């Protein structure tokens, strides 16, 4: 009878590729393992100049070649994984967690709560991210915890805005009204009524935030605000080896590939997580 009734499920039945999900899952897991075991696996000390040739091609001794100073690229990549994953992942998780929680809270509570949180977020988002980081790092010094915290605070408002927008849409639905009429608490409405319906945007947004944070952290490293040489994360490796681009050195391409593999597999993984319905059925 009504168009809404008849147009239903087509959109929802997305192409699902469990294989792709599995593959990306394995890749993400591999990155996590590298982050954990990198220093153990590294064949050479990552900070030491071990070859007279800079931008050397891959060889037996240096499987991935050498960098602009003649350091072993494989070792630097393996150790760099720890910093990239170790900063971006917790920072993205933190940004997503805070943004989602506050976004839902603002949507469900509305009124003053919404106004206060939203304006606070607007204020945060109006700082240029690099200057903001500069101030924080200058004030608190550069450590892993500060980096993670800064990145999380910078990317939280974006997540908040997206989640608030989708949650406000869900909040107007009658099943939320029914829960209110039942007398449910705000936290229960958020958890049972809103969250299950916004899992997809939350997870997709997480993938995006993760990529942005990887880039931000490497930018900070470049400015000398992030990790200090000789330590370097993948973004930093790209930056420091940039001059090798003209000679096609693997030293500049490989870390870029590593970033791409990590971010793409995180995105693919979150897109192909087992359907939320299946997950709920098992419960």
């Amino acid at each position, binding site marked *: 009878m009504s168009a809404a009734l008849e147009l239903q499920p087509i959109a929802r039945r997305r192409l699902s590729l469990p294989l792709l999900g599995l593959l990306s899952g394995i890749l993400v897991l591999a990155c996590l393992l590298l982050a954990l075991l990198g220093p153990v696996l590294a064949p050479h000390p990552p900070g030491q100049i071990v070859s007279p040739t800079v931008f050397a091609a891959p060889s037996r001794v240096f499987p991935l070649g050498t960098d602009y100073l003649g350091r072993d690229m494989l070792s630097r990549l393996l150790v760099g994984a720890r910093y990239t994953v170790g900063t971006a992942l917790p920072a993205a998780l933190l940004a997503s967690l805070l943004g989602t929680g506050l976004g839902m809270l603002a949507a469900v509570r509305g009124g003053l709560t919404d106004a206060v949180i939203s304006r606070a977020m607007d204020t945060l988002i109006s700082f240029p991210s690099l200057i903001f980081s500069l101030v924080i790092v200058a004030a608190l010094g550069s450590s892993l915890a500060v980096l993670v915290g800064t990145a999380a605070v910078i990317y939280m408002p974006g997540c908040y805005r997206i989640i608030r927008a989708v949650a406000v849409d869900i909040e107007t639905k009658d099943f939320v009204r*029914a829960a209110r*009429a039942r007398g449910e608490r705000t936290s229960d409405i958020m958890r049972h009524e809103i969250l299950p319906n916004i899992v997809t945007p939350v997870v997709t947004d997480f993938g995006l935030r993760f990529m942005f944070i990887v880039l931000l952290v490497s930018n900070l490293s470049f400015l000398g605000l992030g990790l200090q040489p000789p330590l370097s994360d993948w973004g930093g490796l790209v930056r420091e080896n940039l001059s090798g681009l003209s000679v096609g050195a693997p030293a500049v391409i490989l870390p870029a590939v590593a970033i791409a593999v990590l971010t793409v597999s995180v995105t693919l993984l979150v897109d192909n997580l087992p359907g939320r319905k299946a997950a709920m059925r098992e419960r």
Partner: protein
Amino acid sequence: MNADPPPHVAVSGLTVTGNDGTPIVADLSFAIARGEVLALIGESGSGKTTAALALMGYARPGCRIASGGVRVGETEMLGLGRRALAEFRGQRVSYVAQSAAAAFNPAQRILAQVIEPALVHGTMTRRAAEEKARGLFRVLALPDPEGIGDRFPHQVSGGQLQRLMAAMALINGPALVILDEPSTALDVTTQIEVLRAFKHAVREQGTTALYVSHDLPVVAQLADRVVVLRGGRMQEEAGIARLLAAPEHPYTRSLLAAAAPAPQSPPAVAADAPPLLQVTDLTAGYGGVTAAGVPRVPVLHDLSFAIAKGSALGVIGESGCGKSTLALVVAGLLPLARGEIRLDGALLPARVQDRTPAQLRAVQIVFQMADVALNPASSVAASLSRPLRFYHDLRGAAARRRVAELLDMVRLSPGLAARFPDELSGGQKQRVNLARALAAEPALLLCDEVTSALDTVVGAAVLDLLAELRRELGIAIMFISHDLSTVRAICEQVMILYAGRRVELGGRAALRRRPMHPYTDLLLSSVPELRPGWLEGISFTHLAEAAGGLMPADAQLPCPFFRRCAVHIPGTCDVLLPPHRVLGKGSEILCQRTEAELLDMQQTASAPA
């Protein structure tokens, strides 16, 4: 026999299938003569819209026209290529959709949109098209036919927009007009003018039309012949008079029965039963409260009523009268501005946050749109378990047992517990919705248009269920609806709202007897009856009243019905607040006219125009 001219529109063996090959419309054949109106009726999912769209050579995404033929005039539609089809649509075959509001571009003036089909197909010059459009506005009885085209869609009423859409469809003088439930979304009083305008225009222009609807009484007013569809197959084809008088197919009979539900025998309610819900001088609205204690946008004004334990009160009125707001106020979702609500004698706090668990449990609300009233991410079991845990702290096996009981109570198979809302039909969803409210074991159920989004047959089954639940559980019901016949079927008491005021309150029997409030009279006479010719028989007085529509400005008048009312007293009704009058038949009205005056005027006014 061979001398018969070939029919104007001929559909033969039309089959439309889904992508997986399941037929949506199967082997459908019918013909429409020139100038004839054929109705295609059936429930939702019967394939009537799919069939109607196939007449334009169109299949929705996910469907395809598998076989068969559609001939309009001299042209075989299904053999045409993309370009020829585009040329054909909007020119030779046109379409009027259910929701005109969604069909108009809100940012363009109406006239430009109405003449667009003519300009796109180059059938006439802009001037000629505008002239023709104004002519059609006149035929469709639109107010201010010269100027209405210069307005934007939001500046006209829903009923007017629907007629403007018909003008758009008729602008090229098409060989066939397809009307897809064009009056379903309208109030009964608005529907009258739309139906009359359609009928007049179709007759005047000699248009051939296919009228798609699920509403038999409406179809009875317009159609010459009827094709009954079910599951994509034709069940019966007959002239309208024959179909109504002697339906052959059992399915047609069930449709007819559902169109006029029989009154349910109410469960025995003790005459002196103490009121379960007592509402006194309730005023509520939106936009906060002014210093004077009145809402900035008042919706409900000084409502008083009571619902006895185990009884049912029907609340009727057209859209915008505040009936859904009333449910929200009683449920505590919208705090009242003035007045009080008592439950079992105890004052019920205005805000849901301030109510005790027992009070929350006692009042449950069932929403209109079953689609959005269930959490799409929760299974039926999860949706039902939530209130069980919340109110009764039931979990685990005990909760599962109770879920099965609840599903049984609403006549659903326990196997449905694992399903998700998108795996349920509309009727099933509404039953789950009901079960969720019942899970609280309430004393009062607020039902907001619970059957409006359902087909008549499915809706009738839900009404039966409600009546059974009342008998079994002794639940009191506040039944909100715009549909008089359903309200009369299940409620002993009926309250009629107009612009947020209680214009009449009385027993269901009193509602059928004159005298009544002038608005009640209009409402009653606006419900289409299951007989051809009802539309022509509406009295002139009622037509004039129906044309008014609910205007927000009128809410400021002492009597909001003043401008539409045929028996108003200028100088009194627009100055003084109308008094409460208790009529001899047992109902109470809000009107300046005395009982004798009303009786006298309503008897003379019922003569046909």
